[in-house]
């Protein structure tokens, strides 16, 4: 057991952090978010050049720990580029289960020329594993009918990795060209982008050999949850850093805010929340790296990240005071992102519902 990054992983973290720090400050980030695309093609190309957009596609070269490291830096800088949603997560699904021909697509993803999206979540089917979107087979060809929402990065994706109910039962994974669907793009409240996507008999290609892919879909969701946990940790670390800096710099009653114990005690609690979140983030990433796609692990991690993220976001704003709710100052943007992450791929309540249903099935809880 160890919790250390390798030298290469540490270098990847440093490189990503430096690159994003050069790319974005609050003002330029807000500008990118307000652009038509919502993020920067230029930054995307830079991410491709340093090899980030293909992380995990060749499991011998990199894997879930590298994804975790990069997502933490994305969260720290609040970069709007959909690294997980448009590249790493759907890419990992194709890498793991796609045919050789389908895997060729990943070269274009890694080079930044093609964007993906994972179209799984459906409106009104919370907590259910059954899908309303269904796949129909005619001869050798397949079509999909249904609706996916929200699809993160669905607005800009070229190829969609879609989940759908199979005619004979179970759920399958399909690739769909985005030109075959109707997209209703939207902005998310934290400045990201997504789409509500309609499939009306859209031509689809089964991923790999096709057939029931329920376990693969569950694994894909866990990968996504792990990436979100990592991103949230970066956002929490930066939120706490900004808050402690503010407590040192800001003066009221002629003294720095850090003079007031009522504030510093709360900052200490934020630190505790952060450390617990870091631990659970490592936990889920290490399990995924071991090929252990365990929903208990993912739920416990996502729940802790949700709880910590909410606590840190709320306290960060409160300890900043009025400046904390402005768009000009970074802290509110971190709070927005943390809030969105809590609601993405299973809210804290959803996680707790699942965990509660399991408590009677074992005695002492073990890692």
């Amino acid at each position, binding site marked *: *057991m160890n919790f250390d990054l390798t030298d290469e992983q540490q270098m990847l973290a440093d490189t990503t952090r430096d690159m994003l720090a050069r790319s974005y400050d609050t003002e330029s980030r807000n500008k990118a978010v307000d652009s038509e695309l919502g993020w920067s093609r230029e930054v995307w190309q830079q991410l491709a050049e340093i090899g980030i957009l293909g992380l995990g596609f060749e499991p011998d070269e990199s894997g879930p720990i590298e994804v975790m490291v990069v997502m933490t830096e994305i969260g720290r800088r609040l970069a709007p580029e959909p690294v997980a949603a448009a590249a790493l997560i759907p890419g990992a699904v194709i890498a793991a289960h796609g045919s050789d021909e389908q895997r060729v697509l990943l070269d274009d993803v890694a080079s930044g020329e093609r964007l993906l999206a994972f179209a799984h979540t459906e409106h009104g089917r919370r907590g259910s594993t059954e899908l309303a979107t269904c796949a129909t087979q005619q001869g050798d060809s397949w079509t999909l009918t249904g609706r996916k929402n929200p699809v993160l990065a669905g607005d800009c994706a070229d190829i969609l990795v879609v989940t759908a109910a199979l005619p004979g039962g179970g759920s399958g994974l399909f690739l769909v060209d985005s030109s075959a669907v109707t997209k209703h793009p939207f902005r998310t409240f934290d400045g990201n982008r997504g789409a509500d996507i309609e499939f009306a008999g859209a031509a689809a290609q089964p991923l790999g050999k096709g057939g029931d892919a329920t376990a693969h879909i569950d694994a894909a969701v866990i990968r996504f949850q792990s990436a979100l946990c990592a991103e949230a940790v970066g956002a929490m670390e930066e939120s706490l850093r900004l808050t*402690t800096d503010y407590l040192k710099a800001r003066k009221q009653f002629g003294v720095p805010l*850090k003079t007031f114990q009522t504030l510093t*005690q709360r*900052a200490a609690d934020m630190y*505790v929340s952060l450390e617990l979140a870091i631990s659970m983030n*490592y936990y889920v990433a290490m399990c995924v790296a071991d090929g252990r796609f365990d929903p208990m692990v993912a739920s416990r991690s996502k*729940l802790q990240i949700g709880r910590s993220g909410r606590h840190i976001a709320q306290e960060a704003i409160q300890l900043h005071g009025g400046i904390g709710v402005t768009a000009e100052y970074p802290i509110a943007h971190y709070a927005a992102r943390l809030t969105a992450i809590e609601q993405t791929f299973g809210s804290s309540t959803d996680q707790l519902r699942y965990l509660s249903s*399991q408590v009677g099935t074992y005695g002492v*809880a073990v890692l």
Partner: protein
Amino acid sequence: MRLALSEADTAFRDELREFFTTQIPVEIRERARAGGPEFREDLVTTQRILNKAGLAVPNWPVEWGGKDWTPLQRQIWDDEMQLAGVPQPLTFNTGMVGPVIAEFGSQEVKERFLPATANLDIWWCQGFSEPEAGSDLASLRTTAVRDGDHYVINGQKTWTTLGQFADWIFLLVRTDPNAPKKQAGISFILVEMNTPGITLRPIKLIDGSYEVNEVFFEDVRVPANQLVGEENAGWSYAKFLLSNERTGIARIGTTKVWLAEVKELAAKTPVGNASLLDDPLFASRVAEVEGEVLALELTQMRVSGDEADGKPNPASSILKLRGTQLQQAVTELLVEVAGPDVLAVNADEHNAAAKYLNFRKTSIYGGSNEVQRSIISATILGL
């Protein structure tokens, strides 16, 4: 980054698990698991078995019976003991005064006290807090005045846990009332409890138990060779001791065992047509605490692997703060499982109300949780 234990550590864990579950009598472990009052004889018996096997004081220097274990191995030792319900070695001996003597004591003091301390031939108690010196420990007033080859001690200590069983007490005393800083005039001295002039007054706690005492010192003459280390350097020894104390206080293994008991009891408790454990409202509270305990367990692994030069990381404050919050959360659940049966004294299996009330102490002792937050905000956050 890797979650699984190495083969060597797995073998190490299995060996300890085997030892704890076969060599420590099951009656002792059952009594300890129930978590009732401390059974003096059980503690003594257990610690002597452990000491004979070289497992009582792994955190001490090797020459005094310690083990050259990694922090992870030490953690495994601690966890496995708790999971097996083994009463842990008396912390006043093995976690507090022993390491201080081993680190700062003279060769003579080490030889005189360490073997007997490891074997629980001496039962130690702690004389730190005073009525006017709680969190502000450095303002303590008990004095020790040098008189020939003795010190004469006058004053009062309080919250002395299990002092009624103790043979010896380790004390912080003021030896230089004129020191420029109050921390600078403090010494660390060892005193036999049957020395003339010492009286003990029990303090009854809210749960009816008798754990802590006031200890009064009236012209108590103590041989000067019982001073540990340098005169007036006691504050740094105390800080060393307190940071060791913080890491031992989380007791995550015990919390996990108690949580499993909460579930076992809840499964046997009918609510309507189902059990309390089937009640989503109750189950969600259990699930939440379980997740929090695992998060702390992982944090403990991260933090304990991070100790530089054997000195506890300031992040160990998290363990104390969060560990005690979770212990308290489990005692709340025990009360709720008992339901109306909790009202009559000793009616429920776990004496849950007494435990719940008693455990309010955990966020106060060992440096109150507010003190831990101050350590975090000052040392880690730089506030």
